[in-house]
């Protein structure tokens, strides 16, 4: 039986399958079909030769929701909100949230719910959740009729203070279901039961915006998979790195919105655990952008304050930092003659000049071709032939305009250097944000272009160790196989922590009952459930919180002394100071519930037999630091176990190329990872 991971991207759909009897991993890539994502999933399974009935579990990551928001083709949403506040969704906190300083022509993006689709209902709760004005059912019915008449395809119910008392929202939802049973309804307290109304409403409206699209997509996918004999539910990866059942994903599609890079980080944690690397920075470089995430003691940094375009999305997510620099980033000249790399990208179409698909402007990939770092004879992903002459021509043409005599190789190396400089800043900044020194971390590189630039990047930052895992080009899809089912829940109660022990326990109790019920529905026995508690705390007077872990579910008490000590410690770590003795306030109680799925066995890597020479593909000229080097090119799959490598060298494999510059050495470890270290100079 197979466990299958499918990463549906904008350009390619990556598939990874592990045979759970043998531990063998097979991978493939098929073109994505925008707006018919399910077709690519089926095509990929067919390409792998795997029948649906032989699949035990299928996990997929999708950008269907993200793209629908970015391309603004979600449902027509109507919002039902507290009387007096229909414009709150547009006014927000009055931030631009897009780069617009010095730009008189900037246009603030409008929310996805138009003003004519915003309706008010008569009700009002107080700041403690008490009812000030009872819900007026007639006003709800009037609003519902108006919403339906305006052509609404989904409803968002967003009432003030509903996070404390969801009764009015529930009543509105019930009335909606009675009157218009086919309209999907998102209540703000169900989507994110946290305070701060604008962020909660924004998340809820986007959830409603995605519901019909995700519903159609997931229903279609399950139906078509069932037709192939697949007998289980489809799991979808969430922004937090866990997975969700189809039922959850259809109800809360907003939770998938930042899931794109999550699979890679999950897999890096899996690889890191096996390899004994616990503190690392993931470096995922693709065609148009690079995502980095800091992982400390195998726990990726997370946050629940995300932005999708200009709109807040308050769902648990990995704390990723994204830079607009990838293999497809264009090199260009600014009006003052400065050489720039990115953020404009050649994307998948026309793509780099070297791909011969019509691109004419040089990209980072073309620069790597000129430098010999990407071999002209080597297929990329098995399909595309490299047009080395075209890449050379494009870089040389740019060189004629730079206004300074430079060899084409020097310019190509410069393009790569500038791209690396931008990623260097990103990594430094995420590290110091949490008070870390990046030099204490290992860089784990993956994505189509990650291993190509990883060592240069590490060298720039002063990171001494780099790990390139197996299957770096399909890493995110592989990561799906290792992800657990995860439900995040939250309840807000603001008040002095010392007075809130009982409240917190009660909230945990409520959330734990709900989580166990949900996991049981999904088929997890008690011993396969893991429930983890945490609290969002702050010093009295602050306006934002730190999340403090407070142990697993089941305890009947909370050790407030220990919790306070942990909070002071975390505050010191995050902000460089703490105030022992200052009053601490509780804001949120959070519960993360895991359904533990069996992970693919960490079967011991079996490398190829034979000698290192047997893995030699060719020797070719590769440029480093302005000089040509005669450089061996190794085929990764044929590298013998424990083989050691010395730079300059190149390791090629399906979907990725690792560049080992002079001054670096490396070896294949027991798990098949490539491990590199900077050679210390005497």
């Amino acid at each position, binding site marked *: 039986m197979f466990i299958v991971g499918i990463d549906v991207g904008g350009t390619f759909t990556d598939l990874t399958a592990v045979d759970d009897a043998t531990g063998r991993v097979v991978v493939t890539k098929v073109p994505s079909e925008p707006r018919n994502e399910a077709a690519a999933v089926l095509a990929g399974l067919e390409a792998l030769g795997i029948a649906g009935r032989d699949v035990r579990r299928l996990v997929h990551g999708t950008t269907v929701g993200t793209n629908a928001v970015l391309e603004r083709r979600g449902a027509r949403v109507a919002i039902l909100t507290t009387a*007096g506040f229909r*414009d709150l969704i547009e006014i927000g906190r*009055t*931030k631009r949230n897009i780069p617009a300083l*010095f730009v008189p022509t900037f246009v603030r993006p409008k929310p996805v719910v138009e003003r004519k689709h915003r309706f008010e209902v008569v009700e009002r709760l107080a700041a403690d959740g008490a009812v000030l004005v009872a819900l007026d059912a007639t006003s709800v019915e009037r609003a519902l009729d108006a919403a339906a008449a305006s052509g609404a395809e989904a409803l968002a119910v967003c009432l003030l203070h509903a996070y404390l008392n969801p009764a009015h929202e529930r009543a509105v939802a019930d009335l909606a279901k009675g009157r218009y049973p086919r309209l999907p309804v998102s209540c703000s307290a169900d989507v994110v039961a946290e*305070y*701060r109304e604008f962020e909660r409403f924004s998340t809820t409206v986007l959830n409603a915006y995605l519901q019909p699209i995700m519903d159609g997509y997931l229903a279609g996918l399950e139906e078509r998979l069932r037709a192939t004999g697949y007998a289980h539910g489809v799991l979808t990866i969430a922004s937090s790195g866990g997975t969700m059942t189809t039922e959850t994903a259809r109800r809360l599609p907003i939770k998938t919105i930042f899931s794109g890079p999550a699979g890679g980080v999950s897999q890096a944690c899996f690889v890191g655990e096996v390899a004994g690397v616990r503190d690392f920075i993931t470096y995922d470089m693709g065609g148009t952008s690079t995502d980095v995430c800091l992982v400390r003691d195998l726990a990726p940094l997370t946050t629940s304050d995300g932005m999708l375009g200009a709109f807040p999305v308050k769902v648990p997510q990995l704390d990723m930092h994204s830079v607009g620099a990838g293999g497809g980033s264009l090199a260009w000249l600014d009006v003052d003659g*400065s050489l720039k790399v990115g953020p404009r990208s050649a994307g998948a179409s026309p793509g780099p000049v070297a791909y011969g698909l019509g691109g004419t402007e040089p990209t980072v990939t073309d620069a790597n071709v000129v430098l010999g770092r990407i071999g002209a004879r080597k297929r990329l992903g098995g399909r595309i032939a490299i047009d080395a002459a075209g890449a050379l021509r494009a870089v040389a043409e740019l060189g004629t305009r730079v206004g*300074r005599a430079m060899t084409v190789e020097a310019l190509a190396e410069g393009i790569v250097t500038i791209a690396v400089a931008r990623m260097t800043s990103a990594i430094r900044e995420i590290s110091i944000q949490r008070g870390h020194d990046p030099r204490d971390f290992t860089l784990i590189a993956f994505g189509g272009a990650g291993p190509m630039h990883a060592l240069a990047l590490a060298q720039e930052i002063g990171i001494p160790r780099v790990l390139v895992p197996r299957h770096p080009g399909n890493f995110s899809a592989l990561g799906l196989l290792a992800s657990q089912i995860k439900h995040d829940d939250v309840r807000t109660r603001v008040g002095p922590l010392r007075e809130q022990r009982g409240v917190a326990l009660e909230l945990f109790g409520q959330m734990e009952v709900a989580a166990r019920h949900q996991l049981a529905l999904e088929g997890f026995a008690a011993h396969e459930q893991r429930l983890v508690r945490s609290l969002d705390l702050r010093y009295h007077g602050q306006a934002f919180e730190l999340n403090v872990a407070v142990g697993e579910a089941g305890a009947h008490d909370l050790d407030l002394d220990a919790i306070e000590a942990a909070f002071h410690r975390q505050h010191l770590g995050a902000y460089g100071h703490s105030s022992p003795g200052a009053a601490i306030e509780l804001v949120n109680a959070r519960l993360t519930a895991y359904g533990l799925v069996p992970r693919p066995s960490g079967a011991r890597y079996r490398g190829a037999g034979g000698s290192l020479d047997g893995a030699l593909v060719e020797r070719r000229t590769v440029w480093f630091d302005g000089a040509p080097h005669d450089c061996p090119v190794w085929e990764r799959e044929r590298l013998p176990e424990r083989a050691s490598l010395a730079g300059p060298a190149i390791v090629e494999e399906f979907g990725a190329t690792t560049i080992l510059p002079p001054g670096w050495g490396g070896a294949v470890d027991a798990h098949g990872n490539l491990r590199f270290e900077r050679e210390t100079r005497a």
Partner: protein
Amino acid sequence: MIDPITLEVLREALVSIVREMRVTLVRTAYSSILYEGEDFSCVLMDGRAQIVAMSKGQDHPLHIVPVGWSMRAVREKFGDDIHPGDIFLHNEPYTGGTHLNDVAMIYPLFSPDGGMFVFPVVRAHWGDVGGMSPGSLSGRATEIFQEGVRIPPIRIVDRGRPNDAALDLIFSNMRGPRERRGDFQAMLGTCRKAAERIEELVGRYGSATIRDAVAELMDRAEGRMRHAIRGLRAGDYVYEAHLEAGTERLEPLTVRAKVTVAGDTITVDLAGTSPQTLGPTNVGPAMAPTGAFTIIKSFLDPGADVNSGAFRPLTVITPPGTIVNANPPAPCGGMVEVKYCVESAVMGALAQALDGKIAGDLKGGGNHCYVGGPHPRTGETFIFYEYPAGGTGGFDGGDGSNTVRAWTESDMTTLQPIEAVEQLYPVRIERTALREDSGGPGRWRGGLGLTREVRIQTTGAQLSVLAEKAVLPPFGVCGGRAGATNRFWVRRHGERVQPSSLPGKVSAFPLEPGDVLLMESSGGGGFGDPLERDPARVAADVGEGYVTAGTAETLYGVVLRKGEPDTAATAARRAWLRATRMHVRVVAGAELDGQSGRGVRLGAEAATRLGVSPGAVIEFVNPHGAPLRAWVASLAAASGAGHSLVAELAPVALRMLGVADGSEVEVRALHTGVLTA
């Protein structure tokens, strides 16, 4: 010359150091206004007081640009007596500070050859710097001594030794000294980290290469700016914008900007600006250049890096003793308001060199609105503070945006979450809504302002407001109309209560339980003639409720039938509106007394038809730029060849309008000039 690759790598590295400084300060600051509000800026400077790098988008131009003045003040005072290990502190407006709350730390570094090198500066808003009221800023201040501790450039660390006497003195005169000291240490740590990074860069590239890169980056920014200036029409362009003052009558303060475009340089001369005032709307010498630069950069080269190279083609003259370069001891708390006014004036002048390719005007200031008093639960003083954003102006090709931080300022939150407000303060927010019809009508409409209704639920609370454009609305351009004014007023028992005679300037107005405070922010000015707006856009605006059907008809001339424009009726309506617009013949006359703004002698019949009397403010429409606002000085007897619809203006005013003596100009009444409590 430095090679283009190293140049880009160093450009990235320098800006990255500034971003790291920001992260470090957020991570270590003690007061929430810094680590949550991010009311601070970081910058790298050089020994010649030039800005080397700032992070565009996060750092506030308002903090950064004046650092050049602070640095020059340090050099002027200390000359060559500056040594490794010295650190300077500065907040004094008259020598280049902003307002006293913004404290700059200057951390000079030296290159191995001994010269002053690239070094970090942090300017951070300290929550309190002493003075007459908590938070230090007060609309009632008449002298700077009431606004807190004034720090001229002082050496606070002398070759590594902190001057503890000075520090003790400073912190002893501020509220919350523990937090102040914490923020001071955080600024110090931030500068130290930056210094380490700069030293690393020097170790790797050498100070000569870095100097070359910095010089080249500035030269490039300069070259871009000069190139853009050469694209302007050469000449002198004058415009006047106003700050609101007066008790019974509106007696405005005027900022007068003469923008001279010559070759590849621009000079902004603010001669003719009002003398400094007793209120807080004064600034030191750095703020007007900051405003002028903000406008010139925004319209000429918004994409470039911000460094001092871009300033080189620009000269700003600020006459001493005026509100744009006040002498001690004028209070300077209203510096945001003055900066906005300078920006409006420069924009109006620059418009004449840009064929009107500018944007409708903005909200005019901070819109600071405070409700404070004893908290009924704790008895402690609470302060509920918001500063609602308004709409931005329409521009050629697009409508302004609704209630959002403007393009001249940093991107900050101006409203607190209702769910937090109602837990923290004895108030209830009853409404937060877009202000319909508040966007200035135009071919491209101004963005809408907002209305926020706050019910007071305690006794003893007081209201204070510092806002501009509460009498004279943000102007529209190129025939566009003004946006709605800012309004801050109280509804008591269903009646409207005006909390002060001069709108927008409220000091400790007593609030009663059950009062509803209405904060209404301005709409942006419109761009272009509203009668030329695409009727389909007007219909869409009415469908969204941004514009009412009545306004669609009366100001846009669009008649709707079932939500769709009626083509024939619209054409007829527009023709009629166009034909009935009020025009006057403007003639050149003597310069009139400028006590109350630019004077105009208006023909009696024109005055009657406009319904205005002396003291009123009228607006002359400029189809190619910003409108001329003038105060009716006196009524002239009907003069000229049977022409009773005349307006006599000084020649310079005709130039502001870009019209010849004797031209017909559309005119609108704006305000009676009478203030009533």
